[in-house]
């Protein structure tokens, strides 16, 4: 009798343990599935004149220049994973996640792309950070539709454009003669670190904060207009054009 009772208690405990273990296993498996990241990797050989054009939805895009005649694209994707369909057109690598995932909910896609130093870089995202470094081509364009920081370091391009909504913009690079440089933010800090040997015409506007710090670049050719909301003038011979607008943030110049 006692043996029967013990046996029944043992069976009940075993059943409970089994159920509990099943639940734990299911939860663990589900958790692993939801946090899973998928990756994407592809490499394209390039010619002399190459352009990278990327339109991301959400996530961080990092573009680095390297000394190889090829473009390497690596991406890690959060669930729900996005479709990535790069196109290799004549002289251009095009990745358009907006078009390729239209009407779908997709998770973050973080890119790490390596391009030849002389590659033109044109990257966009709806939300997320954009980072470009070591590029000395004719074009660097970084555009964020809403929020995210833009960091451009070691850039020696003749045309640079960085534009975001909410977020900081940092540029560390050279100002080329006859070059065109445009930085624009809705709210954030814009900091430009450029060599003292640069020469440019400047129009810097910070209408709300009036916080425009020229640092060592202040000279008699620069003048504040509109009650200090704008600085315009010339530094050096003024061959390049530099336009900086920050609607609700500050603008700062740092000597490189």
């Amino acid at each position: 009798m006692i043996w029967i009772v013990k046996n029944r208690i043992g069976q009940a405990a075993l059943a409970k343990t089994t159920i509990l273990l099943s639940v734990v296993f299911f939860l663990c498996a589900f958790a692993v599935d939801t946090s899973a990241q998928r990756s994407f990797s592809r490499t394209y050989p390039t010619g002399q004149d190459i352009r990278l054009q990327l339109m991301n939805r959400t996530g961080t895009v990092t573009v680095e220049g390297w000394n190889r005649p090829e473009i390497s694209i690596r991406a890690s994707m959060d669930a729900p994973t996005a479709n990535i369909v790069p196109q290799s057109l004549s002289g251009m690598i095009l990745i358009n996640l907006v078009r390729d995932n239209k009407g779908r909910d997709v998770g973050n896609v973080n890119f790490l792309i390596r391009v030849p130093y002389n590659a033109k870089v044109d990257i966009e995202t709806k939300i997320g950070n954009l980072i470009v470094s070591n590029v000395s081509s004719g074009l660097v364009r970084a555009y964020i539709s809403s929020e995210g920081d833009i960091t451009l370091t070691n850039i020696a391009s003749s045309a640079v454009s960085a534009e975001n909504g909410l977020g900081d913009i940092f540029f560390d690079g050279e100002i080329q003669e006859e070059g065109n440089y445009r930085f624009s933010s809705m709210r954030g800090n814009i900091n430009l670190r450029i060599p003292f040997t640069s020469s440019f015409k400047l129009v810097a506007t910070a209408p709300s904060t009036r916080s425009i710090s020229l640092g060592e670049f202040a000279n008699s050719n620069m003048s504040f207009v509109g009650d200090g909301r704008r600085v315009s003038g010339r530094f050096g011979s003024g061959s390049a054009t530099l336009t900086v607008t920050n609607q609700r943030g500050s603008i700062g110049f740092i000597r490189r």
Partner: protein
Amino acid sequence: MNCDECKNLISVFMDSELAEPQASAVQMHLAACSDCALVCADLSSILDVCITESPSEIVPPNSQALWCRINNIIENEKAAPPPPAEQPRGRFWQLSFGQLSAAVLCIAVISSLLTFVTISNYTQPAAADFTTRSAATQTTFEKVLSKVGLMETPQQARETRLKEQQAAIDYWNARVQTRRTQWNHITRDAFDRNLQAIDESVNDYTMILQKDPDDELSGEMLDTVLNDKMNLLRDFSDL
């Protein structure tokens, strides 16, 4: 028979003095030609009046005095000296082909030069910037053009531009509203935060411009933030 021959014979035909073959030819032509038939009808009605009305009704009363007045007028016109200035004036404006060509060439060159000079001066404020300018910085030429209605004043230009931008914003906003239910909360929150920041700036510049319509910088910034708003809406409408 053609029309000219018919018209020559029609009077004789109506007096019934034509020979039979000619009369029948006229009759056939009248049957075929509506113009000649009309002439015949007119002539016939005149003849009818002459026949039916009494001479006193056809001839005006005191016809003698009427003829006297007509004679006097004719005599006076004969006696009057010819107008002296008419002939030289006519000769003055008679230009040779070469003179006319030279005049046209001169007008073309002068108008081209004027246009060139005007456009060169006018490119100082770019057309796109005109919406953000104030009346204070208008050139005299622009003021004159504005006054005669050939050009918009900066305020009118700004209002027109604002209307265009608002129309575009409404269009993209309608598209965004249909799409945003499919966005995840991260996208929705980011979009709303950015839109709010832009709207704050729009309100700030609008208030400044209401107080000081000549504040060019605020006009320019308002134009910029409205463009930013349009771009934000457009960018998110395809998600």
